[in-house]
């Protein structure tokens, strides 16, 4: 199962819709609207980062998966960062530049970070070449979950 957390917490999970192409008979893709966004309700407890992490855990439990693959885009990666191993995909044309990518990668600190730079790819992975999905599929194949 792939559990996806979208960029910019103010956006809905529709930005992750094209991940459905990774789904199959034995592999589910799960997305959700983050707190206070789109079809999810307004939270009574605010918007601290750890609440987003708790929401992610609540979704994991609700879908009944003991272990999942997490897919985080930008902010979504921050929400998912406590979980390893990590496939770190970075578009070579991303306006923040490779130095930012390397600093972010180092923030993962320890083990099991696979870092890949994708050519002809910018900030929006949805507009990247199919090469993007090849890396995701390969990662899913060698790091199985439920």
């Amino acid at each position, binding site marked *: 199962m792939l559990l996806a957390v979208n960029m910019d917490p103010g956006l809905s*999970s529709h930005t992750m819709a094209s991940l*459905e192409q990774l*789904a*199959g008979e034995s592999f589910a893709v*799960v*997305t*959700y*609207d*983050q*707190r*206070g966004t*789109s*079809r*999810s*309700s*307004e*939270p*009574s*407890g605010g918007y601290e980062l750890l*609440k987003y992490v*708790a*929401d992610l855990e*609540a*979704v994991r439990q*609700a*879908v009944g998966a003991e272990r999942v693959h997490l897919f985080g885009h930008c902010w979504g990666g921050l929400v998912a960062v406590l979980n390893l191993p990590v496939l770190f995909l970075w578009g070579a044309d991303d306006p923040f530049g490779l130095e930012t990518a390397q600093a972010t990668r180092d923030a993962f600190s320890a083990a099991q970070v696979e870092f890949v730079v994708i050519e002809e790819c910018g900030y929006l992975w949805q507009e990247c070449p199919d090469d993007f999905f090849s890396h995701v599929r390969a990662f899913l194949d060698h790091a199985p979950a439920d």
Partner: protein
Amino acid sequence: MKPGFLILMAMLVITLGLAACGQAMEVPTREVKVQADDVTLHV
């Protein structure tokens, strides 16, 4: 039969074939509400 008619028939067959293929490949989806600590999440 006239060539125009044959072309029309061929286009019809291709269109119906693609539509059937699209339906066969469609992945089932469902939506649920998840109650988290202080918020209801749309999944």
